[in-house]
């Protein structure tokens, strides 16, 4: 049995799923030029506006028509009817002769030679008027007729009103409307011309609109295409106009800046991991290698192994910190948010690190109100305060004072850790909080350079911010000996 020629025609149970999918995919794969045109939003906008324009033109022509040609027609009809009614009055007063007189009178007065009359006796005899006969398609119940009349050797159109008088004689009153028809033709011609021009303008306008839209969108599209090709340094060129396209370009650029910043962060982390993890790993490796090859002294061997383990533990800690920061920065940890009072937490932190400060001969001063209720992640907040206190203890000289304070600032808690360490230069302040950044003065103190990164990430997770100020200016007059100190401020919104 040969296989079916086309999988689409396979009558198997799974065939039912196919027909829906296949044609649609095909349309997307091979869009024709017309489909492409219809799919273009700018074309559809333009088409819409062209149609709107034409619709407006049509309405305008309609009103114009009704107001000119229509009005003329209505005017003629009412004049005919009035004339006919007047003649019928005459007949009632004086019978046929009176009508004959009146018709004669009117024809004599009609200088433009537009009026038509005909009075027929009941037997069909023509009694008066300038019309040769009644319309051929005369019907007893109809009153209005249009007919072709021969006048002065020329064909002309006429409009007639036929009235049957009580004695069955018939009276026809009419007007030659040849002039009017010529006028109407003229008007029609004019409207047709203007419609043509309007259509032309509509499509020209649509085309221009489409061009303009595409032109304004082109920078964004080209930039996006270049970025898709891998050149992240591209930005949408801005023309300096304050319009929607400009705003689109601006938001695209902001987004790209943010992405570039994040990419840089990732690159920075991998560089830093490469540096800060490679070093202890290399150290551990060389120690273990040396131990494996070198001495037979069991004590030395054991020492080398233990140091290797300690190095690996350090690697694990740095690694954990990097992962923790990434976790916090991704905002994934909001799950652990709960209402809490910051005061017991600060007391715990002060108690934990106060002992360390005391060991170093430092004083830890504290200051906060009775309660600081807020919403947050207890462990992360303690970690942040702990990191700040740990830094402060590390950088303050023996005998110095560290201050941990917290208080309300509008609807946020302002937390400050002030030390009497060497402080930070303005340049370093901008870089502190970057992963693995360590100011030059701190190179000799232990630490991974991740502490403040985590604090900043925690602050941001709580919708807050972190910044640095000078500690105090009070320590010593000698400029060389002066220790500016550093105040790390963390603002945490309550909600």
């Amino acid at each position, binding site marked *: 049995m040969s296989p079916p020629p086309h999988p689409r025609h396979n009558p198997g149970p799974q065939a039912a799923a196919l027909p829906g999918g296949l044609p649609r995919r095909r349309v997307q794969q091979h869009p024709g030029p017309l489909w492409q045109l219809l799919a273009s939003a700018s074309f559809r906008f333009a088409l819409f506006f062209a149609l709107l324009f034409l619709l407006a033109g049509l309405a305008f022509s309609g009103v114009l028509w009704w107001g000119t040609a229509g009005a003329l027609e209505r005017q003629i009809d009412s004049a005919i009817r009035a004339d006919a009614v007047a003649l019928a009055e005459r007949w009632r007063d004086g019978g046929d002769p009176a009508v004959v007189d009146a018709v004669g009178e009117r024809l004599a007065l009609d200088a433009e030679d537009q009026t038509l009359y005909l009075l027929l006796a009941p037997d069909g005899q023509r009694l008066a008027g300038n019309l040769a006969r009644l319309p051929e398609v005369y019907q007893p119940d109809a009153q209005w007729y249009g007919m072709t009349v021969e006048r002065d050797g020329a064909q002309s159109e006429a409009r007639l009103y036929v009235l049957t008088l009580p004695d069955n004689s018939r009276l026809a009153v009419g007007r030659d409307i040849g002039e009017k028809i010529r006028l109407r033709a003229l008007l029609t011609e004019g409207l047709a011309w203007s419609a043509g021009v309007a259509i032309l303008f509509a499509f020209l306008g649509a085309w221009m609109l489409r061009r303009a839209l595409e032109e304004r969108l082109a920078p964004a599209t080209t930039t996006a295409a270049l970025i898709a090709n891998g050149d992240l340094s591209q930005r949408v060129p801005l023309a300096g106009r304050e319009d929607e396209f400009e705003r689109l370009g601006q938001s695209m650029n902001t987004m790209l800046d943010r992405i570039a910043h994040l990419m840089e962060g990732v690159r920075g982390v991998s560089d830093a991991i490469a540096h800060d993890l490679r070093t202890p790993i290399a150290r551990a490796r060389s120690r273990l290698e040396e131990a494996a090859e070198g001495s037979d002294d069991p004590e030395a061997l054991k020492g080398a192994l*233990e140091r290797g*383990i300690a190095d*690996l*533990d350090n690697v*694990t*800690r740095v690694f*954990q*910190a990097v*992962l*923790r920061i990434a*976790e916090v920065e991704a905002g*994934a*940890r909001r*799950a*652990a948010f709960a209402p809490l009072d910051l005061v017991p937490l600060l007391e*715990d932190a002060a*108690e*934990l*690190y106060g*002992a*360390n400060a005391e*060991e170093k001969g430092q004083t830890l001063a504290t200051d906060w109100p009775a309660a600081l209720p807020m919403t947050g992640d*207890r*462990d*992360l907040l*303690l*970690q942040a305060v*702990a*990191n700040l206190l*740990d830094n402060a*203890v590390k950088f303050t000289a023996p005998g110095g004072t560290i201050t941990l304070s917290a208080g309300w600032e509008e609807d946020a808690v302002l937390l400050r850790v002030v030390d009497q360490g060497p402080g930070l230069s303005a340049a370093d302040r901008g870089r502190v909080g970057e992963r693995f950044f360590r100011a030059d003065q701190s190179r000799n103190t232990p*630490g991974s350079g991740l*502490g403040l990164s985590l604090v900043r990430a925690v602050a941001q997770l709580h919708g807050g911010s972190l910044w640095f100020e000078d500690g105090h200016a009070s320590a010593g007059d000698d400029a060389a000996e002066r220790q500016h100190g550093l105040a790390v401020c963390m603002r945490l919104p309550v909600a």
Partner: protein
Amino acid sequence: MRILLVEDDAEVGRFVKKGLQEAGHTVEHVLNGREGLFMAAGENFDLLVLDRMLPGGIDGVKLVETLRGQGNHTPVLFLSALAGVDERVKGLKAGGDDYLVKPFAFAELLARVEALGRRPAVDAPATRLKIADLELDLLSRAVTRAGKRIDVQPREFRLLEHLMRHAGQVVTRTMLLEKVWDYHFDPQTNVIDVHVSRLRQKLDRGFDKPLIHTVRNAGYMIRAEP
């Protein structure tokens, strides 16, 4: 203690099993969750040490949930490479009693295993804890050594209480941080050591026999004999 170890990594499993056996425990080691559940439900163990992620369709969390659903309350210690706090919470919510992140020091694992396996009986709340000549009155919160009153701060009292409740067992720094301070975080420095050494000074001043011992590479232990 009779311990069931469910760990799919053969090397880690072998290492943990050997260590626990050297510490005097009997260890059954299985490699997947299905077998682990079968054994845990069918036999009596004093403690389960479970990897969080296991092959065989039943992971550590599922295993504990099933056991707890059957009314089995054997203490469970999770071992996991998943360090996220949410993961830890998930493990404890499922019925785990402790959670240790890989890589870990064996001393930390052993200390936690022994702490879990010999938990004090809940139905007999002691009012006094005693070790050698050191006495702790849990009601009046008074500490005396050889009849002499020693002033300690509330946190130091809790620290001492925890050590004494686990007398003769190693208590690691992280365990103290978790149990006495009730925070899960990385203290960066030796904060716990500072607190323990302060407490030690208060207790041992004037006595020639130290009670709080430092266990190298592990933590602290309170015991009568040196």
